[in-house]
């Protein structure tokens, strides 16, 4: 049986001879906290045949997503992918020829790199499959330190439609400000308190107003929630998650200071490390001080 040759190509700006027009779009999906990576390019295997069907396996090493600090992330999970390849540049000097991209797949290496794998084949005397195009859409996780959760409340507290609710929900977006803060020690404080909170990462609400997830429906039937995420949380530092109501988001029927938020699940403080990069389910409840 003929041994299939394997050729490795690298889709980055340092290897223009391997891949033309390499691009990666890194799209943060928010909820759930995955990334959608869209890779496109024109691989240049320059594979030729002298007569018979000559197969080759091409492995295109795809670029890693880049973090806000400029360093590449490792891909920790390949959740789903779609991939396609097609002929881009072929040449033949005889009337009989075959050019084939036989299959395509994407794999995740132990080193946290995505690789497109395609078996190609050429027949002709001579024929060249100079280039093939590819697109990979991959939903992935990266080793990015983050905290995520939901902020929820009961329908009796605030509703976009129920006029009998305690507070009026004035909009369905921009409801909360989310931050990760550290509270530095205050050694001169005899009661052991800390200094003023310092913001170390700013979060964002990553979805619009939804009815409660199923596991909250039993406790808060008909309630609402929004998901949030705080990315690029510093490692090895105990942080607290601070959630505040955006001005004007809710209009209480009584004192404007009567609405408050409390953390109802997850640790506090939270310390992320290289071995524990993600803290999900750090959930907050919006409540009325008057009703509790």
């Amino acid at each position, binding site marked *: 049986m003929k041994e299939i040759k394997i050729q490795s190509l690298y889709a980055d700006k340092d290897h223009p001879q391997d891949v033309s027009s390499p*691009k990666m779009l890194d*799209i943060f999906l*928010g909820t759930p906290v995955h990334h959608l990576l869209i890779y496109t390019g024109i691989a240049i295997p320059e594979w030729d045949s002298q007569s018979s069907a000559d197969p080759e396996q091409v492995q295109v090493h795809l670029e890693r997503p880049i973090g806000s600090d400029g360093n590449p992330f490792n891909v920790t999970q390949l959740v789903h992918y779609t991939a396609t390849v*097609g002929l*881009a540049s072929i040449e033949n000097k005889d009337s009989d020829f075959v050019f084939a991209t036989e299959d395509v797949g994407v794999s995740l290496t132990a080193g946290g790199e995505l690789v497109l794998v395609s078996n190609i084949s050429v027949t002709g005397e001579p024929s060249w499959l100079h280039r093939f195009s590819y697109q990979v859409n991959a939903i992935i996780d990266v080793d990015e330190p983050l905290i995520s959760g939901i902020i929820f409340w009961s329908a009796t507290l605030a509703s976009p439609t129920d006029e009998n609710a305690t507070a009026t929900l004035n909009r369905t977006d921009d409801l909360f400000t989310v931050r990760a803060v550290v509270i530095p020690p205050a050694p001169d404080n005899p009661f052991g308190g800390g200094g003023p909170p310092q913001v170390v990462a700013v979060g964002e609400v990553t979805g619009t107003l939804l009815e409660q997830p199923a596991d909250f429906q039993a406790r808060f039937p008909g309630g609402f929630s929004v998901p949030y995420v705080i990315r690029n949380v510093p490692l090895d530092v105990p942080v607290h998650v601070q959630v505040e109501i955006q001005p004007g988001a809710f209009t209480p029927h009584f004192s404007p200071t009567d609405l408050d938020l409390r953390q109802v699940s997850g640790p506090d403080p939270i310390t992320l490390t290289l071995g524990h990069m993600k803290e999900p389910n750090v959930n907050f409840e919006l409540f009325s001080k008057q009703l509790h």
Partner: protein
Amino acid sequence: MAREKNFPFHLDNIEGHNDLISYNSWCIPIRGPAPANVLATISGIAALDLDTDDDLGTESKKEGDVYIMTLFGLKPTDTFVDGSAVVTLARVCSDDSTKGTFFDGDDVPVLFALDDVEVGLNEVKLVHIRVHIVVGGDIALDKIAFQANVLIHREQFASTDGCDY
């Protein structure tokens, strides 16, 4: 009908042209990379209908740019953040009518190449795909399949722009 054999080609579906087949597009709201908040995907098959009668054995290759002008436009207040595209050969033919001379009377050397691709905007903010093409021999490069992915920053969403779900 075969087009003029002059680069650059402009393929579109406006002003009575029907160059783009199986054309489709959609867009969805996204959460970054900042400042992008919309991802648009545009796909179809562009009918180039490039037909040459050259002999690659004695005549040089032809090359130049083809612009696939999509119907997807940015709003005046939108900003183009980034884009990528994939293009593939969708329909190609070789033709021995010139009885090429490279080897003997029956040999017809041919070359079809999509060497480079990029996404951009034209002057009215319609998304276009520029493809650098090289062809040689007595060939027809009839169709090119394409898909473009465009990241956009949209200042304001409207209920009718298809990006609010």
